[in-house]
């Protein structure tokens, strides 16, 4: 469990310069998530056109993992269809070992290989207390999508 696996450069970059960090004008859906025990908070707002998430914002306060996860999530989700987003959420949860998957994991050291930049978060898996930090924006996104 090396800290370098957790605090990758790209994570600190997203933490310090979060993307999609401004509130949307009249979002179609939004949800607030918080982790009362450590104080992480994130608000996710989405704009939907037809079946597509055309815009998204994630604004919050919290640790590097929750805020980087939120920022990277916005980049991964923007422009995707609901179905693609659902698949992304699923893959993310599998990478974090929050959900099991029937798929064979090609490379157990890189369960997030198919997730692009998000793969950088896979180090979190080895820090179980922090998994809920990484997961918070994704839970909140799911709630925003359900509206």
């Amino acid at each position, binding site marked *: *469990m090396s*800290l*370098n696996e*957790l*605090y990758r450069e790209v994570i*600190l970059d997203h933490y*310090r310069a979060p993307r999609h960090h401004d509130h949307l004008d009249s979002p179609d859906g939004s949800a607030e998530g918080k982790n009362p*025990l*450590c*104080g*992480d*908070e994130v608000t996710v707002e989405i704009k939907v056109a037809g079946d597509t998430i055309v815009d998204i914002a994630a604004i919050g*306060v*919290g*640790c*590097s*993992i929750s805020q980087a996860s939120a920022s990277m999530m916005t980049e991964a989700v923007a422009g995707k269809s609901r179905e693609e987003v659902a698949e992304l959420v699923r893959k993310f949860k599998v990478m974090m070992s929050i959900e099991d998957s029937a798929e064979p994991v090609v490379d157990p050291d890189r369960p997030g290989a198919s997730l692009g930049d998000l793969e950088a978060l896979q180090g979190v898996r080895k*820090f179980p*207390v*922090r998994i809920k*930090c990484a997961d918070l924006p994704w839970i909140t996104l799911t709630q925003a999508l359900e509206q």
Partner: protein
Amino acid sequence: MTDLAHIRADFPILRQEMNGYPLVYLDSAATSQKPTAVLDAITDFYETANANVHRGAYALSEIATDRYEEARTRVAGFINADRREVAFNRGTTSAINQVAYGWGLYNLKPGDRVLLTLMEHHANIVPWQLVSRHTGAELVYVPHTESYELDLEAYHSLLDERVKVVGITAMSNVLGTINPVRQLADAAHAAGALVVVDAAQAVPHMAVDVKQMDADFLAFSGHKMLGPTGIGVLYGKRELLEAMEPAEGGGEMISDVQLDSSTWAEVPHKFEAGTPPIAEAVGLGAAISYLEKIGMDAVRSHEVDITSYALERLGEIENLTIYGPADMTNRGGAVSFTLADIHPHDLSTILDQRGIAIRAGHHCARPLARSLNVPATARASFYIYNVRADVDALIDGLHEAREIFGVA
């Protein structure tokens, strides 16, 4: 004053490794570790004396009752109370709820005020909020100064005839601030208010004398003072306890139960509904014996030593902000801080990799966190088993955090 170093051997958990490092436990403000003497007292109780108390006419039950009541006597002596003024319950939170429901629910009314400090733990806020919903009383808060002390001017100006209860933490679990309880109590009494002291942090770390404080009610927890979980104490002045209604009802707290109403047992039994935490009381008694053997003055000076050293070493780190008094005269061993833009949660993870346990968060004091304008702080807190080397380990860990986060 490292002459307490030898007592580390009494704490089995400190021999443990955590993430490949010797455990450096700096979270005693959340809960303390337990010496073997306490664990042995609990096991011995179950193996030789276990029975329900105050109920049986047989020898074993009498032995159990004696042990339980001995623990009460010990607690009473420790805080300079009469034994009838000491009721056992689950912890500080439970004890304060008992006052809120037993006294507040019967005596507060619309227009009345409950005056709290902004540095209260949720345990001395939420019970009053709940009872306010039923009574219509209003909550008012005393702010702190920029040097993290209670704003006495604000206190005195808020203390008018509407205030019926004043809730004060004797020692803040976030700032470390030791409040001048006696002075605050005198003013509250002059204004006709009762004083409820949250002593969860004070009783474990310094000599507390309820008479000297002139507290009307005072609450603390066993688990923060070397004792087991599941046990706490409500102290109340005899005449107040006698006048107060019990919050919880059930067996052992009654004198008689008729179909539609009941009469209560004598104090303190009136406040101990059902089977009490018997073995836990015995364990707390053993913890107090252990602390008394060291002496609360020695406990305090050990903590003054180690906390001063921590403040000094932390002060050397750039971009590190400490939330709490700089001076040891009015602070305890809880040191909250932030380091540059590194989130406390991240600090905690980095330190944890070196076996160092600190807390990160709002420390169950969100109103204070808001007033400090920080969503979370890191907190290192010390107790008798900590040594200067623990502080050194903390400092080294913080330097690693700076590196990882590329903080200048």
